[in-house]
């Protein structure tokens, strides 16, 4: 299992860089993971998305469908890609510490 180290953060991640144990996620970890996704700083916009994702996941046990994400956060798909260049699944979910999206590829 690869170790991912960034500043003081050191966590186990899988090959795709997704966190292995979601329980270990915190804001620092988010920042650390963001760095791998071409995101230098987490702005308010980033946090709005991350928080929405985490809350949704906590409530329903799944990541929201993307249309729902856009609708409920008010960001267009384009804006999400601007915030997380590798997109909502690979980028935002990773930073938010969610289970890796699967299946539909």
């Amino acid at each position: 299992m690869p170790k991912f180290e960034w500043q003081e953060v050191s966590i186990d991640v899988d090959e795709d860089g997704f966190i292995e144990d979601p329980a270990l996620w915190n804001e620092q970890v988010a920042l650390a993971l963001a760095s791998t996704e071409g995101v230098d700083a987490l702005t308010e916009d980033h946090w709005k998305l991350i928080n929405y994702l985490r809350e949704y996941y906590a409530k329903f046990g799944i990541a929201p469908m993307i249309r729902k994400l856009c609708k409920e956060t008010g960001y267009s798909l384009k804006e999400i890609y601007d915030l997380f260049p590798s997109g909502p699944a690979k980028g935002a979910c990773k930073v938010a510490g969610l289970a890796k999206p699967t299946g539909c590829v």
Partner: protein
Amino acid sequence: MAAEPVKRVTDIGPPHYGKYLPPVVKANYGKWVDHEILEPGVMVHIAESGAKVYTVRAASPRLISVNKIRAYCDLADKYCEGFLRFTSRNNVEFLTAKAENVAPMKKDLEALGHPVGGMANSISNIVHTQGWVHCHSAATDASGIVKSVMDALHEEFTHMRMPGKLRIALACCLNMCGAVHCSDIAILGIHRKPPKVETERLPKICEIPTAVASCPTAAVRPANISGVNTVEVIEESCMYCANCFTVCPAMKLNDAENDGLSIWVGGKVSNARHEPMFSKLAIPYIPNNPPCWPEVVDAVVNIVKIWSKNAQPYERMGEWIERIGWPKFFKMAGIPFSREHIDDFKHAGLTYKRSTHIRF
């Protein structure tokens, strides 16, 4: 690594096909009036203007190296003004306006190890998938079986002596990438054991509701196992489709002992004569036997043989079986009829024989 190109562009889409059409095609685009299949793998299309384009079609294993592509390109340069195309069944085609190019091109292709054929009432390439070469989901390999079967059937690629077209497809798991569900003969990789649930790891890496929702027979259900919120599988309800594994890595089904293949027959896609049809189960299980899967090869060859011997002209596999009846098919093919053949999914009742139309 090399320096990035100056400007990063996205969403340019594929090259416009217009750039890639051979001149004779471009000139007669949409103006073809007829065609003739001249010999196996060679046909000519005739345009309103009287212009002709000859096509030579060669087999391809689909999994090819860049060097092979380059070899194709060289042939294209040599005979086809630098153009070539691939077919919807992954064969390669060379188009030329020059009749005299056909024979030498054919020779070159055969020398390269690529038989020319697959046209008209023959067996064309096997549409297939990734198998052990690339996919996590595979219950078998794809390319190896295709190679073994086509080695046995290549003469039916290079001849045109079948009653109709025969389309074979292979998919390495029930996701059925390709057209296995509508093929004259389909080879399908299957699992036969329920998923092995990694109980503790599962909630960390999988969405539990998604895993539960993924099961067509509701065999996956949420469970709390020694304090962990995870899922369990009701094994009697599992028919090994692996859809749970598709959405959840912690539910692996692969099993060297029990994985294997099944054979399906009688599907078709074209609207010619009979409406499109799904393939139907012929042989429920054949074990994996790499590298040459002799049992699969025998099974396919056997079915091809009885069909080609008994079908009437232009009768595809499914049309033929419909005419003679399934009982006769099983008898002629020497395949024992078993409980697995009887549908038990959603529309099962509609597959029962609801008449006395029986052939004795």
